């Protein structure tokens, strides 16, 4: 009888504490940013980072949104569809699609591989190739970078083929004033945007110092890097011993300077910079084995490696306040982990699978901050 009474007491205490525990879990916010998600139901989802609730579903007219790029003031989004044929302009303030165009016509389809919108919003550069269906075959055109006027939708120029033979696989990025265009391939090539002539070339494909291997790193933009700075994991092969090494590099585009250090043998781990630039996080994924890595960028070391029950094809981005880690990609979930303990806090289930996931720190509609491609 006494046992029963004790159990009832415990139960009463648990029931009393339950709302408080739930409330504590609910108030755990990652910051005041905004997440834009391309969704398979032909919409751009706007997600409030503080609650991870969908605040708006903006339908697009050209199909499944895939590539997404924000204007410098974060008020306009440029979307390329999954069929790689259309560019759509979305007004994020009004929450609606306001324009779209395609370069395909007749039996010729122009597939757009990459895009970079001029910071002034006047034109877009499209890396594209044409595919013409003839009676007995397809005729595949040369890859070219086209300058398309965003008002008239006319192709007004073509970036000369003499500019960077590596341009096909390169990322494109404008300088903040729009005067320079950077091609990020094995080397970084800067061209002026008047006539698209090369003005500078940074041969990162060659070793930075004697005795070093060639540095391989991605120039994907982090929401937490300063303008013109790229912090990322790099890999290189020691030319003497043939060992694959990895490390962290901080590339300053304007000053053509690289600050780098090695961490140790190369492993299949990703890297995502945390806000403030003092830490980074990574995911190591193998079948049945998943790890969170924490990089101490001040101490220039790997701070911790923690195994966790992950899944294949995860992507990671730290929250805008640095306290949480979001795991997304390949599906309709966002897993929220504590950045310090790596404890799974909750999983947010969305009503659509995602194609793209952009986190914009701060008040996205007004902060005028950076964008991600």
């Amino acid at each position, binding site marked *: 009888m006494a046992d029963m009474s004790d159990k009832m007491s415990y139960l009463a205490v648990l029931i009393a504490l339950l709302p408080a525990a739930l409330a504590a879990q609910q108030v755990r916010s990652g910051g005041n940013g905004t997440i834009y998600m391309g969704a398979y139901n032909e919409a751009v989802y706007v997600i409030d980072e503080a609650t991870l609730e969908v605040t708006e579903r903006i339908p697009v007219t050209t199909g499944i949104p895939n590539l997404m790029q924000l204007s410098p003031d974060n008020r306009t989004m440029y979307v390329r569809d999954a069929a790689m044929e259309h560019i759509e302009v979305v007004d994020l303030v009004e929450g609606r699609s306001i324009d779209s165009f395609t370069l395909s016509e007749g039996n010729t389809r122009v597939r757009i591989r990459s895009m970079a919108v001029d910071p002034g919003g006047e034109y877009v550069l499209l890396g594209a190739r044409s595919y013409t269906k003839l009676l007995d075959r397809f005729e595949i055109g040369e890859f070219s970078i086209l300058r398309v006027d965003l008002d008239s939708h006319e192709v007004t120029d073509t970036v000369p083929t003499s500019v960077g033979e590596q341009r096909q696989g390169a990322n494109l990025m404008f300088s903040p004033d729009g005067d320079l265009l950077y091609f990020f391939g094995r080397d970084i090539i800067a061209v002026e945007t008047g006539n698209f002539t090369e003005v500078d070339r940074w041969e990162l494909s060659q070793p930075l110092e004697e005795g070093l291997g060639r540095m391989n790193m991605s120039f994907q933009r982090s929401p937490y890097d300063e303008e013109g700075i790229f912090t990322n994991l790099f890999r290189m092969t020691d030319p003497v011993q043939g060992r694959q090494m990895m490390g962290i590099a901080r590339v300053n585009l304007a000053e053509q300077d690289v600050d780098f250090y090695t961490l140790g043998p190369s492993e299949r781990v990703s890297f995502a910079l945390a806000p403030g630039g003092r830490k980074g996080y990574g995911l190591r994924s193998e079948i049945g084995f998943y790890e969170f890595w924490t990089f101490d960028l001040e101490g220039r070391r790997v701070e911790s490696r923690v195994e966790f029950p992950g*899944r294949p094809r995860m992507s990671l981005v730290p929250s805008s306040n640095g306290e949480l880690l979001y795991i997304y990609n390949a599906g309709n979930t966002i897993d929220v982990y504590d950045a310090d303990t790596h404890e799974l806090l909750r999983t947010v289930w969305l*009503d659509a699978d995602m194609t793209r996931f952009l986190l914009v720190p701060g008040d996205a509609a007004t902060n005028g901050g950076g964008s991600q491609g």
Partner: protein
Amino acid sequence: MALKPINRKADRMVTYLEHQGAVPPAEQMAGPVDPAGANAGVDENAEDVVALGGRLPEIPEIPHIPLGCSLVFAPGWEVDEAGGTAGLCQPVERDLFDCHLACFWPAHVPDQLNHSPDWTGKCAAAQNDWRKLEMIFP
């Protein structure tokens, strides 16, 4: 004072440096005639000594996988961008749409680029409502 290679290894280094333009050709060097065997096999082993600051050998390209997925009919055969399987999805529903998207895996998932662009139209979240996906008959 110019140096003369005294053994096979030193000769290879001279050959390498000549190729880089760092030293005059061996025949212009002063010194005694090279010892017997010093030049044996020079051609077949040329450039196997790599100087620290020299030009590096090209990195072999990663496997070229057209549009990300398999283009052959082989159930269960799919590779990730590195040519392995570690990057593939579990559960499989998570990968259904991304296989459909541009990388079209024609034997298993309808081709989004040309023939079935609206295949996912009635099913936004594959894990939840994959039963709504339509059967496609080519």
